[in-house]
């Protein structure tokens, strides 16, 4: 009997291992294409100009004014984008969650269409609309809002407009999901107990939608930190984010050490935020929100 049970257990363990083996091709791909190269960059970031171990790449990052400015810009842009997305996206998600399902699905297309459209195409569209001879300047002047063409692009304004437009669906979708999951009877109960609709919203509905909002805001912030294409095209060289500096370090200065150090800091920052958030929100919610 005992030998039999032992054998069954061994078979079960073997079966588990074999099932787990199904993950191995995907795992191998991620290891070879992502983990090993990034590990290599990690190593390179500790190699100085003379080829020996040194911390000079990190020391330079702390000492140099231009690097600290890049980090400040990156965080500033990310925070502003996240804040604007919350201000615009939360009311929209609330509106969508209150609609009858059929209408909501129809309106949802306006969120999903940009979500699926190429990021480059959307960035290009904003470039065309916001430029000096662009549509917005034409309209602004013909309506008498301003006299001369205003610089709407190739600066911080253009970058923010483009980034908020691109990030908005990432916020709206999880917030909408969490709002749909709220039991409508709670609001009825609040009204029944005499709460004014505004009070019922802020004390019952808003707190219940908070986890979705947190998850959405987190995704937006983290994605913003690593943004490249939109600030590169709409920022016109005036908005330099960390990832853009990494690219210049390699393409123009061929300085792998400096680029790797920046990359490591960016990655550590991203992972730290995700890790901290997963302690509060749970990983599934974040992955599901995305």
């Amino acid at each position, binding site marked *: 009997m005992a030998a039999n049970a032992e054998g069954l257990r061994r078979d079960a363990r073997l079966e588990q291992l074999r099932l*787990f083996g199904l993950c191995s091709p995907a795992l191998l791909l991620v290891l070879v294409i992502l983990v090993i190269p990034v590990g290599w*960059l990690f190593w390179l970031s500790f190699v100085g100009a003379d080829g020996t171990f040194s911390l000079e790449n990190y020391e330079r990052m702390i000492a140099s004014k231009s690097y600290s400015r890049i980090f400040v810009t990156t965080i500033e842009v990310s925070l502003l984008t996240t804040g604007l997305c919350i201000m615009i996206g939360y009311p929209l998600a609330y509106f969508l969650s209150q609609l009858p399902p059929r209408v909501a699905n129809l309106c949802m297309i306006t969120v999903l269409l940009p979500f699926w459209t190429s990021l*480059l195409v959307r960035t290009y569209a904003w470039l065309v609309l916001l430029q000096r001879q662009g549509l917005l300047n034409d309209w602004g002047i013909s309506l008498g809002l301003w006299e001369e063409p205003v610089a709407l692009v190739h600066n911080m304004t253009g970058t923010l407009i483009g980034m908020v437009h691109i990030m908005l669906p990432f916020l709206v979708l999880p917030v909408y999901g969490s709002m749909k999951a709220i039991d409508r*009877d709670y609001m*009825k109960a609040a009204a029944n107990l005499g709460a004014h*609709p505004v009070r019922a919203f802020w004390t019952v509905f808003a707190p219940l939608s908070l986890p979705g909002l947190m998850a959405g805001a987190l995704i937006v912030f983290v994605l913003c930190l690593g943004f490249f294409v939109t600030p590169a*095209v709409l920022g016109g060289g005036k908005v330099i984010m960390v990832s853009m500096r990494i690219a210049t370090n390699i393409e123009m200065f061929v300085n792998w050490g400096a680029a790797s150090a920046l990359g490591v800091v960016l990655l550590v920052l991203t992972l730290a935020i995700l890790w901290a958030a997963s302690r509060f929100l749970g990983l599934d919610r974040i992955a599901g929100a995305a």
Partner: protein
Amino acid sequence: MSWLSAPASETQVTHGQRLWLYILSGVIMLLLVAPTLIVIPMSFSDSQYLEFPPEIWSTRWYQHYFGSPEWMAATFTSLKAAFLTMLVATPLGVLAAYGLHVSRFPFARAVFVLMITPMMAPVILVAVGAFYVYAKAGLLYTMASLVMSHSVLALPLVVIVTGSALKSFDMNLEMAARSLGAPRWKAFLTVTLPQIRFAVITGALLSFLTSFDEVVVAMFISGGDNATLTRNMFNALRDQIDPTIASISTVMIVLTSLLMAVAQVFGAARGGPKGDR
């Protein structure tokens, strides 16, 4: 206006009191869609400076796009890379999602986290890392290296979409098939897979789009004969506003809308984010 004074919610707020929300949301939805769609009529303008509405309509920028061997080669490269990425990422992702779902291996959680990292990690890091390794291995500017990198970016989407479909699938059905004598692979192919096929199709479409729209990785590791469409578009955008881009954008919008419609037909079109930021 009886509609305005009719209650709109459980708390008896009327539609009239909510009018501000309706107007605000309408404006936001318009702003979400309009900038992209306005490129379509603009691309048919004859002018060098894209006008709206165009004073003289013409297809000159389309002729320029379809007549240019460089743009055509880049388009073909992008389509090929996207198709191959779909073929690599979908089966690997489905296998992994299934493996993670059925095995109670202690490290399953860590493996899942590792597999969805490419979605969260800054793309520039994926690009630069791949550039370094491919350069050492002499694989730079090849189709194979591009497809491998894009597959890593697409993998998390397939794993997440398939994984969530498996969560709502009743595994007892597969058990039943196996108790009737079907080997595991056969039970999966004939019972489980047909049940989760919509998620698999969505995952495949997302993989295709992830690769097709990807810019940053392509910028570093594609080039020469294997330069992708987005790479060339990005380079053209940096120099000046080339109206040809408007015609290419229109073609891409049409392609995306078609894929989205296909996904809608096959169920939920909601998936993860694009690999590219």
